[in-house]
């Protein structure tokens, strides 16, 4: 509540009223669409009652009697803030990344960046070129936030802006974030990025309600990171990156159900069996961060590694 009053304080009155108008318009518009898109009674017109203009989700502008407009349960910023903090009860999300399948198509990155309003140089997920040492075979490694069960980042946040939910997801609330970047320094996986400049398409996103499950609209001077596509999980859909991958790299699921589903082939398998049979591991386990992201080793790769970098070169 504190944040809300702070925001309203900063907004000038003109902007607030315009935002409120749009907010209502969108709510009522969504209402008409959900009601079948047809206004069945025009009695209010005949009686000369008040009418309002609403825009439907497919872009049509309609005039409907004000008395007929029903507000539907669209998620307001307040509910999104509340639910976003709590998470989805009973779940423990996990991701398994099969390194043997990754061939650097980078479609995960593109899908993620377009969903989360990120500039090309900003990554919630990044595909890295790796090797284990001199003489070993190089490989590609997609690296999202590890959503640790013992996250170092949330410990150092002085304002409770980054936090862990009951379903295991670590989120950032950019309404609270003061941009101190302690969390960026604390994260051993370099999973966080900072909005040094105005975000991509700032004007386009400005009027949207802030949804912390997407961290959109992004805000200059705040930290952003992978959110495990918390908004998609709520709808029972796989994350943006997992769904976009053409190579079957990503498995995603609920550890409590012991099942993960492949984003490409939509196959579902036992999480415990997949990780056990393929020698799954987590990154930097010695730090005790207990990541929720597991990796399967890059054995039996189906395509040769192509790069202009010589990763096996000896460094002096």
């Amino acid at each position, binding site marked *: 509540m504190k944040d809300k009053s702070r925001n309203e304080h900063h907004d000038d009155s003109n902007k607030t009223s315009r935002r409120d108008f749009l907010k209502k318009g969108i709510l009522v518009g969504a209402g008409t669409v959900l009601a079948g898109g047809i206004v069945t009674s025009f009695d209010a017109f005949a009686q000369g009652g008040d009418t309002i203009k609403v825009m439907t989700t497919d872009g049509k502008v309609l005039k409907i009697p004000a008395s007929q407009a029903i507000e539907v349960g669209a998620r307001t910023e307040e509910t999104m803030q509340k639910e976003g903090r709590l998470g989805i*009860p*009973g*779940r423990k999300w996990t991701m398994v990344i099969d390194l043997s399948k990754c*061939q650097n*198509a980078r*479609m995960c990155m593109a899908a993620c960046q377009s969903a989360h309003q990120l500039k090309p140089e900003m990554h919630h997920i990044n595909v890295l070129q790796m090797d284990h040492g001199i003489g070993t075979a190089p490989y590609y490694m997609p690296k999202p936030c590890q959503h640790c*069960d*013992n*996250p*170092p980042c*949330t*410990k150092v946040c002085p304002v*409770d802006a980054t*936090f*862990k*939910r*009951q379903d*295991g997801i670590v989120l950032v609330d950019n309404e609270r974030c003061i941009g101190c970047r302690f969390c960026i320094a604390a994260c051993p996986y370099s999973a966080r990025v900072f909005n040094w400049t105005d975000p991509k398409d700032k004007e386009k996103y400005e009027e949207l309600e802030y949804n912390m499950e997407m961290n959109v609209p992004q805000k200059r001077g705040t930290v952003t990171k992978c959110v495990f596509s918390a908004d998609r999980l709520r709808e*029972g*859909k*796989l994350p943006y990156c997992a769904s976009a*991958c*053409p*190579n*079957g790299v990503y498995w*995603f*699921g*609920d550890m*409590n*159900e*012991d*099942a*993960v*589903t492949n984003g*490409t*082939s*939509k*196959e*579902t*398998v*036992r999480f415990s069996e997949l990780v056990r049979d393929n020698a799954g591991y987590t990154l930097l386990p010695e730090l005790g961060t207990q990541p929720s992201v597991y990796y399967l080793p890059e054995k*039996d790769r*189906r*395509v040769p590694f192509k790069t202009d970098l010589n990763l096996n070169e000896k460094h002096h």
Partner: protein
Amino acid sequence: MNIRHKIAISITASLFFVSQLAHAQWNIPEDSKTLKAPKPVSAESVIAGKALYNTNCASCHGQPGENNAIALSPKPTDLGSSEFQARSTEGSVYFQVSEGMGTMPSFKTSLKDDECWQLAQYIRSFSAEGAVDLSSQSKDLDLRLDLTSKEHKIIAVAYDKGASVEGVKVAFFIKRYFGNLPIGVSKTNANGFAQAQFPTDIPGADTLGTTEVIVKFAEEDLYGKKIITEKVAWGKPFKFINPLDDNHLWASRANTPTWLLLSYLGVVGGVWLTILWVVGQILKIRTYGKWH
């Protein structure tokens, strides 16, 4: 030679080069082209191939004949197109699936040999010579579920107008959040029964172990889409332990560990007490000064 000629020549040359890139790199040996699958094409192999296609190929190539491949460079071929079919044989497709080329991976490590052949037979079913008429063989069957709660066995019965049907593949699943977890496929016996054992260690949705079982025909193209779901209390009882109910160092303010809170308050309290004591001492000095 004027500038127009030069441009025309360079465009023709680059077009030729591009077309070479798109096609000529597949180097399929002649004896592979004439190779035939160990088992002749059948409704069963085409349906199995279709399932394999949807899990392994569709993400790049899209659905055959619909020209909806994803935007990769070079663009994946539409495998239902007549151009592709005209230059293909069962053996050539088998070679392409198992060996791969460029961005297209080799599937011989991830698929079995007969699976590669099933894929080839499915892909070739879009040509005149490889086509299999599924509609003439398809039956509209019914499915019923019998659950034996003692042994946790799921028994499905396939029947056609009251009479049980033999030799129908039935697939059993457990519902999970993002998809259905397969637990077995079995063929109906002479009595029309197919059965699967419910796994002992699969977590249920609640403390009772409630789990949703889903049963379908494995070959839906032949027997129709029948989906039966049933809730059983056979799963491992699951109790959600909310990590936010406990105090952790990583948790937000409300869930601060007691030791941290106490030591912090102790330090702050100690500092304040010291300050108050010092102020008290100074006041004492002043009052002493007034008296003497």
